[in-house]
Protein backbone atom coordinates (compact mmCIF):
# COMPACT_ATOMS: atom_id res chain seq x y z
CA UNK A 1 0.00 0.00 0.00
CA UNK A 2 2.89 2.30 0.82
CA UNK A 3 3.92 2.72 -2.80
CA UNK A 4 0.39 3.47 -4.02
CA UNK A 5 -0.10 5.97 -1.20
CA UNK A 6 3.21 7.58 -2.13
CA UNK A 7 2.01 8.14 -5.68
CA UNK A 8 -1.08 9.98 -4.51
CA UNK A 9 1.12 12.01 -2.17
CA UNK A 10 3.22 13.13 -5.14
CA UNK A 11 0.14 14.86 -6.54
CA UNK A 12 -0.75 16.35 -3.18
CA UNK A 13 2.80 17.49 -2.51
CA UNK A 14 3.26 18.94 -5.97
CA UNK A 15 0.10 20.99 -5.54
CA UNK A 16 1.30 22.28 -2.15
CA UNK A 17 5.06 22.59 -2.56
CA UNK A 18 5.22 22.76 -6.37
CA UNK A 19 6.91 20.22 -8.61
CA UNK A 20 10.31 21.76 -7.81
CA UNK A 21 9.67 21.02 -4.13
CA UNK A 22 8.93 17.39 -4.96
CA UNK A 23 12.17 17.14 -6.92
CA UNK A 24 14.10 18.48 -3.95
CA UNK A 25 12.46 15.90 -1.67
CA UNK A 26 13.27 13.09 -4.09
CA UNK A 27 16.89 14.15 -4.42
CA UNK A 28 17.24 14.10 -0.63
CA UNK A 29 15.55 10.69 -0.41
CA UNK A 30 17.98 9.28 -3.00
CA UNK A 31 20.90 10.71 -1.05
CA UNK A 32 19.64 9.52 2.35
CA UNK A 33 18.91 6.04 1.07
CA UNK A 34 22.47 5.69 -0.22
CA UNK A 35 23.88 7.05 3.02
CA UNK A 36 21.91 4.57 5.10
CA UNK A 37 23.12 1.60 3.02
CA UNK A 38 26.72 1.99 4.22
CA UNK A 39 30.08 1.47 2.58
CA UNK A 40 31.37 -1.47 0.55
CA UNK A 41 34.85 -2.45 -0.61
CA UNK A 42 35.86 -4.98 -3.27
CA UNK A 43 39.23 -6.34 -4.36
CA UNK A 44 38.48 -5.92 -8.03
CA UNK A 45 35.79 -5.72 -10.71
CA UNK A 46 35.18 -9.51 -10.82
CA UNK A 47 34.38 -9.65 -7.09
CA UNK A 48 32.09 -6.62 -7.38
CA UNK A 49 30.28 -8.10 -10.38
CA UNK A 50 29.80 -11.40 -8.55
CA UNK A 51 28.41 -9.56 -5.49
CA UNK A 52 26.05 -7.71 -7.79
CA UNK A 53 24.91 -10.93 -9.44
CA UNK A 54 24.25 -12.46 -6.03
CA UNK A 55 22.29 -9.40 -4.90
CA UNK A 56 24.74 -8.40 -2.16
CA UNK A 57 25.58 -4.82 -3.13
CA UNK A 58 23.61 -1.69 -2.31
CA UNK A 59 22.66 -1.49 -5.99
CA UNK A 60 20.71 -4.73 -5.61
CA UNK A 61 17.84 -2.93 -3.88
CA UNK A 62 16.72 -1.84 -7.35
CA UNK A 63 15.97 -5.42 -8.36
CA UNK A 64 17.79 -7.53 -10.91
CA UNK A 65 20.83 -5.44 -11.89
CA UNK A 66 22.88 -7.13 -14.59
CA UNK A 67 26.56 -6.52 -15.18
CA UNK A 68 27.11 -6.37 -18.94
CA UNK A 69 30.61 -7.73 -18.60
CA UNK A 70 31.09 -7.86 -22.37
CA UNK A 71 30.89 -4.07 -22.30
CA UNK A 72 33.97 -3.01 -20.40
CA UNK A 73 34.94 0.63 -20.29
CA UNK A 74 38.63 1.35 -20.77
CA UNK A 75 40.71 4.43 -20.09
CA UNK A 76 43.23 6.11 -22.39
CA UNK A 77 45.79 3.44 -21.53
CA UNK A 78 43.43 0.62 -22.37
CA UNK A 79 42.93 -0.48 -18.76
CA UNK A 80 39.47 -1.59 -17.65
CA UNK A 81 38.03 1.16 -15.44
CA UNK A 82 34.36 0.25 -15.48
CA UNK A 83 31.42 -1.64 -16.96
CA UNK A 84 27.92 -1.07 -18.21
CA UNK A 85 25.04 -2.21 -15.99
CA UNK A 86 21.39 -2.69 -16.78
CA UNK A 87 18.24 -2.98 -14.69
CA UNK A 88 15.93 -5.62 -16.09
CA UNK A 89 12.68 -4.12 -14.87
CA UNK A 90 11.95 -0.48 -14.01
CA UNK A 91 11.86 0.00 -10.23
CA UNK A 92 8.64 1.94 -10.57
CA UNK A 93 6.82 -0.48 -12.90
CA UNK A 94 5.17 -2.65 -10.22
CA UNK A 95 3.90 0.52 -8.54
CA UNK A 96 2.53 1.84 -11.83
CA UNK A 97 0.61 -1.41 -12.30
CA UNK A 98 -0.56 -1.45 -8.69
CA UNK A 99 -1.83 2.13 -9.04
CA UNK A 100 -3.48 1.18 -12.32
CA UNK A 101 -5.41 -1.66 -10.68
CA UNK A 102 -6.26 0.02 -7.39
CA UNK A 103 -6.75 3.71 -8.11
CA UNK A 104 -7.21 3.71 -11.88
CA UNK A 105 -4.45 5.92 -13.26
CA UNK A 106 -1.26 7.71 -12.31
CA UNK A 107 -1.67 11.32 -11.17
CA UNK A 108 -0.61 14.06 -13.59
CA UNK A 109 2.12 15.10 -11.17
CA UNK A 110 4.17 12.02 -12.09
CA UNK A 111 4.85 13.38 -15.56
CA UNK A 112 4.99 17.00 -14.42
CA UNK A 113 7.73 16.23 -11.91
CA UNK A 114 9.72 14.26 -14.50
CA UNK A 115 9.32 17.03 -17.11
CA UNK A 116 10.46 19.71 -14.67
CA UNK A 117 13.50 17.62 -13.73
CA UNK A 118 14.31 17.12 -17.41
CA UNK A 119 14.14 20.85 -18.04
CA UNK A 120 16.01 22.09 -14.98
CA UNK A 121 18.47 19.30 -14.14
CA UNK A 122 19.11 16.89 -16.98
CA UNK A 123 17.01 15.35 -19.67
CA UNK A 124 16.97 11.70 -18.52
CA UNK A 125 13.83 11.05 -16.42
CA UNK A 126 10.92 9.05 -17.84
CA UNK A 127 8.93 9.18 -14.58
CA UNK A 128 9.24 10.92 -11.25
CA UNK A 129 10.95 7.95 -9.64
CA UNK A 130 13.94 8.25 -12.01
CA UNK A 131 14.97 11.24 -9.88
CA UNK A 132 15.37 9.11 -6.76
CA UNK A 133 17.26 6.25 -8.26
CA UNK A 134 19.53 8.36 -10.45
CA UNK A 135 20.61 10.28 -7.35
CA UNK A 136 20.74 7.05 -5.33
CA UNK A 137 23.17 5.46 -7.82
CA UNK A 138 25.41 8.50 -7.88
CA UNK A 139 25.65 8.51 -4.08
CA UNK A 140 25.97 4.74 -3.66
CA UNK A 141 28.85 4.70 -6.17
CA UNK A 142 30.77 7.10 -3.91
CA UNK A 143 30.41 4.61 -1.03
CA UNK A 144 31.80 1.66 -2.97
CA UNK A 145 35.48 1.16 -3.62
CA UNK A 146 37.08 -1.26 -6.03
CA UNK A 147 40.79 -1.85 -5.44
CA UNK A 148 40.66 1.11 -3.08
CA UNK A 149 39.17 3.52 -5.61
CA UNK A 150 35.67 4.98 -5.24
CA UNK A 151 33.24 4.65 -8.11
CA UNK A 152 31.28 7.11 -10.16
CA UNK A 153 27.88 6.33 -11.68
CA UNK A 154 26.91 7.69 -15.06
CA UNK A 155 23.25 7.39 -16.01
CA UNK A 156 23.02 6.47 -19.69
CA UNK A 157 19.47 5.60 -20.67
CA UNK A 158 15.95 4.97 -19.36
CA UNK A 159 12.86 3.37 -20.89
CA UNK A 160 9.48 4.33 -19.46
CA UNK A 161 6.34 2.27 -18.94
CA UNK A 162 4.79 3.43 -22.21
CA UNK A 163 7.97 2.86 -24.19
CA UNK A 164 9.41 6.38 -24.28
CA UNK A 165 13.20 6.51 -23.99
CA UNK A 166 15.72 9.04 -22.71
CA UNK A 167 19.41 8.80 -23.52
CA UNK A 168 22.19 10.92 -22.01
CA UNK A 169 24.47 11.54 -24.99
CA UNK A 170 26.99 13.51 -22.94
CA UNK A 171 27.67 10.54 -20.65
CA UNK A 172 27.80 8.18 -23.63
CA UNK A 173 30.45 10.35 -25.22
CA UNK A 174 32.56 10.22 -22.04
CA UNK A 175 32.74 6.43 -22.09
CA UNK A 176 32.83 6.13 -25.88
CA UNK A 177 29.66 4.09 -26.38
CA UNK A 178 27.44 4.49 -29.41
CA UNK A 179 23.92 5.89 -28.88
CA UNK A 180 22.29 3.35 -31.16
CA UNK A 181 23.94 0.53 -29.28
CA UNK A 182 22.52 1.75 -25.97
CA UNK A 183 19.14 2.16 -27.62
CA UNK A 184 19.29 -1.49 -28.63
CA UNK A 185 20.01 -2.42 -25.01
CA UNK A 186 16.76 -0.73 -24.02
CA UNK A 187 14.88 -3.40 -25.94
CA UNK A 188 15.84 -5.83 -23.16
CA UNK A 189 16.41 -3.53 -20.22
CA UNK A 190 14.57 -0.64 -18.59
CA UNK A 191 17.57 1.31 -17.45
CA UNK A 192 21.26 1.40 -18.40
CA UNK A 193 24.07 3.01 -16.44
CA UNK A 194 27.85 2.87 -16.22
CA UNK A 195 30.06 2.47 -13.19
CA UNK A 196 33.57 3.75 -13.60
CA UNK A 197 36.45 4.40 -11.26
CA UNK A 198 36.31 7.98 -10.12
CA UNK A 199 39.02 10.09 -11.70
CA UNK A 200 39.70 7.57 -14.48
CA UNK A 201 41.00 9.21 -17.66
CA UNK A 202 38.18 8.23 -19.95
CA UNK A 203 38.75 8.48 -23.68
CA UNK A 204 35.82 10.80 -24.26
CA UNK A 205 36.88 13.21 -21.54
CA UNK A 206 40.51 13.32 -22.63
CA UNK A 207 39.66 13.99 -26.28
CA UNK A 208 37.49 16.92 -25.15
CA UNK A 209 40.47 18.45 -23.32
Amino acid at each position, binding site marked *: *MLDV*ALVSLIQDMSEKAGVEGTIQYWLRVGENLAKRMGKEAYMGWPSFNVALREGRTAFSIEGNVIALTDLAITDVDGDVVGYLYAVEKCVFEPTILRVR*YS*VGQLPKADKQVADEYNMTYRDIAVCNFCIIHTKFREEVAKNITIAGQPLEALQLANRGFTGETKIDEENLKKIGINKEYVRSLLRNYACVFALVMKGARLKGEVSEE
Partner: protein
Amino acid sequence: MKNIEGYQEILDNPMVDIATYLFLEDIADKQGAAGMNNYLMSLAYSLARTMPEEEYTKWEDFIDALVKSESILTAFEKVYAASENCMVTVESPFLRGWKEYTKRIGEFPKIHKDVAEYYNSRVTPTAIETGDIIIQTYRKAAAEKITVNGKKIQVAHIATVSPDGSKKIAPEEWLPILLEKAKITRTQLNMILRNNAAVWVIYTLQ
Protein backbone atom coordinates in the same frame (compact mmCIF):
# COMPACT_ATOMS: atom_id res chain seq x y z
CA MET B 1 -6.26 -4.62 -5.17
CA LYS B 2 -8.21 -5.88 -8.13
CA ASN B 3 -8.91 -9.55 -7.90
CA ILE B 4 -7.72 -10.77 -11.29
CA GLU B 5 -5.69 -13.80 -12.11
CA GLY B 6 -2.00 -13.25 -11.54
CA TYR B 7 -2.52 -9.79 -10.13
CA GLN B 8 -1.37 -10.70 -6.65
CA GLU B 9 2.02 -11.38 -8.18
CA ILE B 10 2.61 -7.67 -8.76
CA LEU B 11 4.70 -6.89 -5.72
CA ASP B 12 5.98 -3.43 -5.05
CA ASN B 13 9.70 -2.85 -5.48
CA PRO B 14 11.53 -2.62 -2.12
CA MET B 15 13.25 0.56 -3.21
CA VAL B 16 9.94 2.37 -3.60
CA ASP B 17 8.76 1.30 -0.14
CA ILE B 18 12.04 2.21 1.55
CA ALA B 19 12.20 5.51 -0.32
CA THR B 20 8.76 6.33 1.07
CA TYR B 21 9.85 5.61 4.63
CA LEU B 22 12.97 7.76 4.16
CA PHE B 23 10.90 10.54 2.66
CA LEU B 24 8.70 10.49 5.77
CA GLU B 25 11.76 10.50 8.02
CA ASP B 26 13.06 13.49 6.09
CA ILE B 27 9.81 15.31 6.84
CA ALA B 28 10.04 14.32 10.50
CA ASP B 29 13.58 15.75 10.69
CA LYS B 30 12.25 19.11 9.60
CA GLN B 31 8.76 19.21 11.06
CA GLY B 32 8.82 16.72 13.95
CA ALA B 33 6.15 14.17 14.82
CA ALA B 34 3.33 16.67 14.30
CA GLY B 35 4.45 17.51 10.76
CA MET B 36 4.99 13.86 9.93
CA ASN B 37 1.54 12.99 11.25
CA ASN B 38 0.01 15.68 9.04
CA TYR B 39 1.79 14.28 6.00
CA LEU B 40 0.71 10.71 6.78
CA MET B 41 -2.90 11.72 7.17
CA SER B 42 -2.73 13.95 4.11
CA LEU B 43 -1.26 11.03 2.15
CA ALA B 44 -4.17 8.80 3.17
CA TYR B 45 -6.78 11.46 2.45
CA SER B 46 -5.39 12.18 -1.00
CA LEU B 47 -5.34 8.47 -1.78
CA ALA B 48 -8.97 8.08 -0.68
CA ARG B 49 -9.91 11.19 -2.67
CA THR B 50 -8.67 9.57 -5.89
CA MET B 51 -10.91 6.55 -5.35
CA PRO B 52 -14.37 6.28 -6.90
CA GLU B 53 -17.55 6.26 -4.81
CA GLU B 54 -19.34 2.98 -4.17
CA GLU B 55 -22.93 1.99 -3.46
CA TYR B 56 -24.39 -1.34 -2.44
CA THR B 57 -28.01 -2.28 -2.03
CA LYS B 58 -27.44 -5.08 0.45
CA TRP B 59 -25.07 -5.36 3.44
CA GLU B 60 -24.11 -8.91 2.34
CA ASP B 61 -22.93 -7.59 -1.05
CA PHE B 62 -20.79 -5.01 0.69
CA ILE B 63 -19.18 -7.62 2.96
CA ASP B 64 -18.58 -9.82 -0.07
CA ALA B 65 -16.82 -6.96 -1.87
CA LEU B 66 -14.71 -6.29 1.22
CA VAL B 67 -13.61 -9.89 1.56
CA LYS B 68 -12.77 -10.11 -2.15
CA SER B 69 -10.78 -6.82 -1.91
CA GLU B 70 -13.05 -5.38 -4.59
CA SER B 71 -14.19 -2.46 -2.45
CA ILE B 72 -12.01 0.64 -2.15
CA LEU B 73 -12.11 0.06 1.60
CA THR B 74 -10.06 -3.12 1.32
CA ALA B 75 -8.23 -2.34 -1.92
CA PHE B 76 -4.89 -2.70 -0.14
CA GLU B 77 -5.54 -5.49 2.33
CA LYS B 78 -6.76 -9.04 2.70
CA VAL B 79 -9.58 -9.27 5.20
CA TYR B 80 -12.14 -11.71 6.50
CA ALA B 81 -15.37 -11.02 8.33
CA ALA B 82 -15.38 -12.22 11.95
CA SER B 83 -19.02 -11.11 12.12
CA GLU B 84 -21.27 -9.06 9.86
CA ASN B 85 -19.74 -5.91 11.38
CA CYS B 86 -16.25 -6.99 12.33
CA MET B 87 -13.45 -7.03 9.78
CA VAL B 88 -10.11 -8.67 10.41
CA THR B 89 -7.01 -7.68 8.44
CA VAL B 90 -4.91 -10.78 8.08
CA GLU B 91 -1.57 -9.16 7.25
CA SER B 92 -0.44 -5.55 7.53
CA PRO B 93 -0.40 -3.94 4.07
CA PHE B 94 2.96 -2.48 5.15
CA LEU B 95 4.55 -5.79 6.08
CA ARG B 96 6.58 -6.06 2.89
CA GLY B 97 7.98 -2.53 3.26
CA TRP B 98 8.65 -3.18 6.95
CA LYS B 99 10.57 -6.35 6.19
CA GLU B 100 12.57 -4.76 3.38
CA TYR B 101 13.48 -1.77 5.54
CA THR B 102 14.65 -3.90 8.47
CA LYS B 103 16.57 -6.15 6.10
CA ARG B 104 18.32 -3.48 4.03
CA ILE B 105 18.49 -0.39 6.23
CA GLY B 106 18.23 -1.70 9.80
CA GLU B 107 16.07 -0.86 12.77
CA PHE B 108 13.31 1.72 12.27
CA PRO B 109 14.10 5.06 13.93
CA LYS B 110 12.07 5.95 17.03
CA ILE B 111 10.15 8.64 15.14
CA HIS B 112 7.91 5.97 13.54
CA LYS B 113 6.60 5.09 17.01
CA ASP B 114 6.63 8.70 18.28
CA VAL B 115 4.40 9.80 15.43
CA ALA B 116 1.95 7.01 16.29
CA GLU B 117 1.85 8.24 19.89
CA TYR B 118 1.12 11.71 18.59
CA TYR B 119 -1.71 10.32 16.43
CA ASN B 120 -3.04 8.24 19.35
CA SER B 121 -3.23 11.28 21.59
CA ARG B 122 -5.04 13.41 19.03
CA VAL B 123 -7.00 11.22 16.64
CA THR B 124 -7.68 7.55 17.47
CA PRO B 125 -5.62 5.62 20.03
CA THR B 126 -4.99 2.43 18.01
CA ALA B 127 -1.79 3.12 16.06
CA ILE B 128 1.57 1.50 16.73
CA GLU B 129 3.63 2.99 13.94
CA THR B 130 3.64 5.06 10.75
CA GLY B 131 1.73 2.61 8.56
CA ASP B 132 -1.17 2.38 11.01
CA ILE B 133 -1.80 6.12 10.70
CA ILE B 134 -1.97 5.78 6.93
CA ILE B 135 -4.26 2.75 6.81
CA GLN B 136 -6.57 3.88 9.64
CA THR B 137 -6.98 7.36 8.14
CA TYR B 138 -7.47 5.82 4.72
CA ARG B 139 -10.17 3.41 5.96
CA LYS B 140 -12.11 6.25 7.56
CA ALA B 141 -11.78 8.51 4.51
CA ALA B 142 -12.64 5.71 2.06
CA ALA B 143 -15.68 4.69 4.14
CA GLU B 144 -17.15 8.14 3.57
CA LYS B 145 -17.37 7.34 -0.13
CA ILE B 146 -19.43 4.18 0.39
CA THR B 147 -23.16 3.79 0.94
CA VAL B 148 -25.11 0.63 1.72
CA ASN B 149 -28.82 0.84 1.15
CA GLY B 150 -28.44 4.62 0.97
CA LYS B 151 -26.63 4.90 4.31
CA LYS B 152 -23.06 6.04 4.77
CA ILE B 153 -20.53 3.62 6.24
CA GLN B 154 -18.57 4.34 9.40
CA VAL B 155 -15.32 2.69 10.47
CA ALA B 156 -13.91 2.40 13.99
CA HIS B 157 -10.67 0.70 14.98
CA ILE B 158 -10.56 -1.85 17.76
CA ALA B 159 -7.00 -3.14 17.75
CA THR B 160 -3.76 -3.24 15.80
CA VAL B 161 -0.89 -5.73 15.86
CA SER B 162 2.54 -4.66 14.62
CA PRO B 163 4.73 -6.98 12.50
CA ASP B 164 6.91 -7.42 15.62
CA GLY B 165 3.90 -8.66 17.60
CA SER B 166 3.24 -5.61 19.76
CA LYS B 167 -0.45 -4.81 20.19
CA LYS B 168 -2.48 -1.66 20.64
CA ILE B 169 -6.06 -2.11 21.75
CA ALA B 170 -8.66 0.66 22.04
CA PRO B 171 -8.96 2.14 25.58
CA GLU B 172 -10.91 0.13 28.18
CA GLU B 173 -13.71 2.68 28.32
CA TRP B 174 -14.31 2.39 24.55
CA LEU B 175 -13.91 -1.35 24.23
CA PRO B 176 -17.35 -2.60 25.37
CA ILE B 177 -19.11 -0.28 22.90
CA LEU B 178 -16.78 -1.22 20.06
CA LEU B 179 -17.08 -4.95 20.77
CA GLU B 180 -20.86 -4.66 20.91
CA LYS B 181 -20.90 -2.93 17.53
CA ALA B 182 -18.49 -5.55 16.17
CA LYS B 183 -20.62 -8.37 17.60
CA ILE B 184 -17.62 -10.20 19.06
CA THR B 185 -16.57 -10.91 22.64
CA ARG B 186 -13.34 -9.88 24.33
CA THR B 187 -12.13 -13.47 24.26
CA GLN B 188 -12.83 -13.67 20.53
CA LEU B 189 -10.89 -10.43 20.07
CA ASN B 190 -7.88 -11.89 21.86
CA MET B 191 -8.13 -15.03 19.74
CA ILE B 192 -8.16 -12.95 16.55
CA LEU B 193 -5.20 -10.82 17.67
CA ARG B 194 -2.97 -13.84 18.08
CA ASN B 195 -2.32 -14.22 14.35
CA ASN B 196 -3.80 -11.24 12.52
CA ALA B 197 -2.84 -7.60 11.96
CA ALA B 198 -5.91 -5.48 12.74
CA VAL B 199 -9.50 -5.65 13.92
CA TRP B 200 -11.97 -2.97 12.93
CA VAL B 201 -15.69 -2.44 12.90
CA ILE B 202 -17.99 -1.26 10.11
CA TYR B 203 -21.48 0.05 10.70
CA THR B 204 -24.02 2.55 9.46
CA LEU B 205 -25.47 5.39 11.49
CA GLN B 206 -29.09 4.70 12.43
